[in-house]
């Protein structure tokens, strides 16, 4: 769950800094309203500026900015470049109005040459319409490479539990990797407005043990079908 861990660290640090800044500013504001009121007998200062403290303050701002830039860039690269051991499992995702198609072109061993299919499965109705959200199955503890495209308009694949999303563009393939460290089943959503049933375009994201995954992959050998559930 690298994405989730990295997100957790960055979000916590940034929230802490933000919280501290907010409390400080609010404190100064409340002080002003209470102690600098005309009714409290304050007299206004005529000093136009304080260049010394201002320069020091700008220095502090630069230091904070520099830290955030460097640290978040490093975290971003950690998140997007870390790999677990072993060859990646490949999943092809095709988003379409208004459901998802997941296909599994074969296990690991380098990138399969065939790009993900751009036409959705020719089911009479998309499963999502009937409330049967398709399931994206992955094994725990292995790198999973997701290749995502769209059959029509721009969509976005979001699994909130993973703290990650990636857009699905037509005529273009986005690729990202993820590693899941525990079993479970979590909801996934479409996160790019895509028309009338954007609100109902959900899927399940399910992580199973490598053994269970192998068994599942065997029984769904070759291309999986949308709506497959383990």
């Amino acid at each position, binding site marked *: 769950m690298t994405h989730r861990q*990295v*997100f957790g660290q*960055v*979000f916590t640090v*940034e*929230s802490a800094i*933000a919280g501290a*800044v*907010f409390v400080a*500013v609010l404190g*100064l*504001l409340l002080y*002003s*309203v209470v102690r*600098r*009121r*005309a009714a409290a007998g*304050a007299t*206004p*200062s005529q000093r136009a*500026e*304080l260049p010394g403290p*201002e320069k020091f*303050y*700008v220095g502090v*701002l630069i230091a*904070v*900015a520099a830290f*955030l*830039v460097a640290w*978040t*860039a490093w*975290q*971003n690269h950690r*998140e997007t470049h870390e790999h677990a051991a072993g060859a990646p499992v490949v999943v092809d995702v095709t988003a379409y109005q208004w459901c998802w198609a997941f296909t599994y072109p074969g296990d690991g061993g380098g990138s399969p040459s065939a790009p993900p299919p751009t036409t959705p499965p020719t089911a009479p109705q998309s499963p999502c319409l009937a409330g049967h959200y398709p399931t994206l199955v992955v094994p725990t503890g292995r790198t999973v490479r997701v290749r995502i495209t769209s059959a*029509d*308009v*721009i969509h976005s694949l*979001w699994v*909130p*539990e993973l*703290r*990650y*999303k990636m*857009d699905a*563009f*037509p*005529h*273009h393939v986005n690729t990202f990797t993820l590693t899941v460290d525990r079993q479970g089943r979590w*909801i996934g*959503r*479409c*996160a*790019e*407005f895509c*028309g*009338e*049933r*954007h*609100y109902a375009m959900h899927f399940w994201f399910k992580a199973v043990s490598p053994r269970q995954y192998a068994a599942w992959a065997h029984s769904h050998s070759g291309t999986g079908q949308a709506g497959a559930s383990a």
Partner: protein
Amino acid sequence: MTSVASPEPAAGRREVRPGGWLAWLGATDHKRIGLLTLGTSLVLLFLMGVLALLMRSQLAQPDEHVFDPHTYNQLFTIHGSGMIYLVLTPFAIGLGVYLVPLQIGAPAIALPRTTLLAYWLYAVGAVVMLSGFATTGGAHASGWFSYPPLADSEYEPGAGSDLWIAGVVMSAVGMILMGWAVLWTALRKRPDGMTMLRMPVFTWSMVATCLMVVGAFPSLLAAMALLAVGRGDPSVFASNVWNIGYQHLFWFYGHPVVYVMFFPYLGAVSEVLAVFSGRRFFGYKGTVLSLLAFAGLSMSVWGHHMFTTGQAADDYYSLMSIVLLIPAGVEYFGMLGTILSGRLRLRTPMLFALAFIPQFLIGGLTGIMVGTPVVDYHVTDSYFVVAHLHYVLFAGSAFGLFAAVYFWFPKATGMMLDERLGKLHFWLAVAGANLTFLPMFGLGYLGMPRRVSTYSPFDGFGRLNLLASIGAGILALSMAVFAVNIIGTLNRRALHGSEHQAPDDPWEGHTLEWATSSPPPSLNFTPEHPLPPIGSFAPLLDLREQAGPAVPGQAEGPA
């Protein structure tokens, strides 16, 4: 020293001013054009707010059927489009049209006929955009950023979308023309003594704003042209180049526009903070420099709206987005320094200005968070971003808008708004804004996407949505109080004729607009109301200080 810059009418030619409402339609007096713009955008603010109230009624509980998805999609598209293209941007530039000539001591705006044409393009453009609701397919429903291919004629075939594009183009052209006129006025129409570094903070905020308008708004026209071409020939968007290209063209405009919708309100807040602290704005030079730096940086960060496209230079946009905190921090240094060393009078404009400080900060700090890709990968396109943008644009900019209205209303109309209603509006707005938008951070974090017409009872989003909808109801109340105040006050003026109730300077102001009558005469400064000497960016404060210690509470207008 300055010479009196107000012109004497040429001998034998009397100063004429057109009368009647017909004359307003053709007015070249910048104050009339300004008021037309401000008034139109205020009316649209209420209308777009009603759309939001309808949306919140649909989302208050899971699985509601108040509106079907297609209707809901029109509501959020026009709410966003209206607020950005037709309300906050025109109000911001309209403030500049009204105030900049006065604040620099000029009798008129540069390019008055162009400015008037700009207003009409905006107003007619608004009608064109909103008339989409009257077409059979309904109004445009692809969101205010309107990404292709979804916004293409293949997926959204109705005339409402064509009208939306035309409306956006017309109002954007209007804003470019208006922004250029305001910029040219500040740069080239200053009288003797009004050097660049004696222009008030608000005027400098308009200079920075108009530079962004000139630099970034043409890109919106390019994006709309691309969309229009694509609607004629959808095969254009069968190639990814133009899908991602549209996003670059759109967001190159789409980020600076949010600063266009921020700087003038920040400038207004700064003026109000200074006047009601009884001292000149603190840290003027740093503020001017940071406004210009901030505006330039704003041109560089647009890609932070595209982190999840997988096709943008994430590191660069993240770097620049974080660097924004430096000039933003300098702005806060000035605002806080002003109130910390001032003598505060807590009248209605000041209340809104003070609330702006922490509320905008929430938006700004969460902006840094969404400007870092790691966080953005989770929260973009969710209610977290909806919360962020409403904190900066409503709890921030709109509060600055309210501060500006209460502050300058007496100058523009000769009437004081009711102070008690103003305070009621304020407290309802603070309660409503925070109750509406704070829960949305939680909703986004928990996984609620944006632009959804409903959600399931099993999602766990019900409680926070209900809170947000209750908050929206409180906001509606606050806006009703605001409307009653404005309409009631204008009614009083209509009933009691030109019996002035507001003096020239009801607040002990610092800048030149307070040296003339309320409302000002057509050429702003006359022999009866001459330009005072201009020695700094707070000339009236200078005069008062030279005259000796001020008696506290003097020259306050009636409550």
